């Protein structure tokens, strides 16, 4: 666990710093992949930048709306740099809305765009695992396995390391597909399938899970439902590709 990193006189928050590095690395990989697929890189950068900016603004707005009393008499706190004054769900909704609106206005192909962004998503997943390791969040259940780590007063599964390894394996598995794409959407859907299977598996080793009923973890149930939807979408895309030919799918 290393929640802060000392760089000279600066004491950086390690989890946030790791996420920024992962974003930068992922965006560079996505740019390389976009060039290979003749996707406009300027639009890719604009899409990511606009989504991020809108996401941050949306996260703050949602937080303010949900905690109006906290800002009474502290109007200037609206502009505070505290990351604790952000609502992650609100940020995600705002970022996705901004991405869809930007994509539609610039006539970006939906599946092609998701494919191009997949290297970014894959690197971000590695970054999230590493940031969990830094903060000590997403810690594992108690174990007697020899590779267990001492954390929060017990020997636990190194679930954050599992996360990182799984995300790295996912990136390696999809890397091969990046160079030989049959038709748009398959890279993203394959990434989603592998990632969701990892989530269902690794969530089972986490000690901080939230139960929905009788100890069943909400994270696993959510991932299971999304996995079923991804399987369905994958099958539909493949069936469409097999029926009407690759070129038609790519354009539609």
């Amino acid at each position, binding site marked *: *666990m*290393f*929640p*802060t990193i000392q760089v000279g006189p600066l*004491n950086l*928050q390690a989890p946030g710093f790791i996420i920024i590095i992962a974003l930068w690395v992922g965006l560079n990989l996505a740019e390389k992949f976009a060039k290979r697929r003749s996707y406009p890189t300027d639009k890719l950068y604009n899409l990511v930048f606009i989504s991020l900016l809108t996401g941050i603004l949306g996260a703050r707005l949602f*937080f303010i709306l949900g*905690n109006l*009393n*906290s*800002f009474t008499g*502290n109007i200037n*706190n609206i502009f*505070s740099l*505290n990351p*604790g*004054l952000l609502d992650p769900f609100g940020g995600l909704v705002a970022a996705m809305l901004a991405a869809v609106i930007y994509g539609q206005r610039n006539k970006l192909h939906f599946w092609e765009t998701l494919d191009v962004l997949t290297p970014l998503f894959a690197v971000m997943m590695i970054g999230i695992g590493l940031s969990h390791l830094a903060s*000590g*969040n997403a*810690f594992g*259940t*108690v174990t007697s396995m020899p590779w267990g780590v001492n954390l*929060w*007063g*017990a020997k636990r599964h190194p679930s954050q390391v599992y996360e990182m390894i799984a995300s790295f394996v996912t990136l390696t598995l999809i890397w091969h597909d990046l160079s030989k794409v049959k038709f748009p959407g398959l890279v993203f859907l394959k990434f989603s399938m592998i990632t969701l*299977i990892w989530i*269902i*598996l690794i*969530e*089972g*080793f986490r*000690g*901080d*899970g939230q*139960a929905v009923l*009788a*100890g*069943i*973890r909400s994270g*696993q*149930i959510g991932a*299971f439902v999304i*996995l*079923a939807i991804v*399987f369905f979408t994958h*099958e539909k895309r*493949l*069936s469409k590709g*097999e029926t009407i030919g690759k070129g038609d799918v790519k354009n539609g």
Partner: protein
Amino acid sequence: MNRDFRIFFYVAILTLSLIWIYFSRIPVEATSESGKMAPHTGFLAPEISLLDTHGNEIKLTELRGRPVIVNFWATWCPPCRAEMPAMQRVEMDYADEEVIILAVNSTNQDSLPAVTQFIDEFGISFPVVLDTQGIAANTYQVSSLPTTFFIERDGMISDVVIGGPMAEALLKSRIDRMLKRTP
């Protein structure tokens, strides 16, 4: 891969997932349910037993039943100084709700005269305890000042904020959340 094989693959993965979801249900000893103490969200707050600036002993466990904000700080730390006025205002605003702010001074890296001067300068009315040996900071694995722990009425840590200065709105939102959870 033909369609039939794909369908079989999807069904097999979903079935295996369901089996794993059932067998990996949350064990009772996973977090604080077994009463484990650790300086992290979801665990019971470890004990702090220190003397305040008047020589009175203050024990964290004796404050159970009231929401407590434990703030590790030092006089030489600029973000600590910056967030103190907000903490003082919050202490006054939430006096009726019995919210306690416990400021743990890292006295092993500070000096007592500087602490008393600081208390007078900022008009601090909440208890300030002196961590002269650095034991509390060590127990709470404090790696950076300020570090703030939000502890619920039942002694459970609900949030940890590393670094600062914390905005007043952040303090109030966390306190409101604690008050809503355990009325």
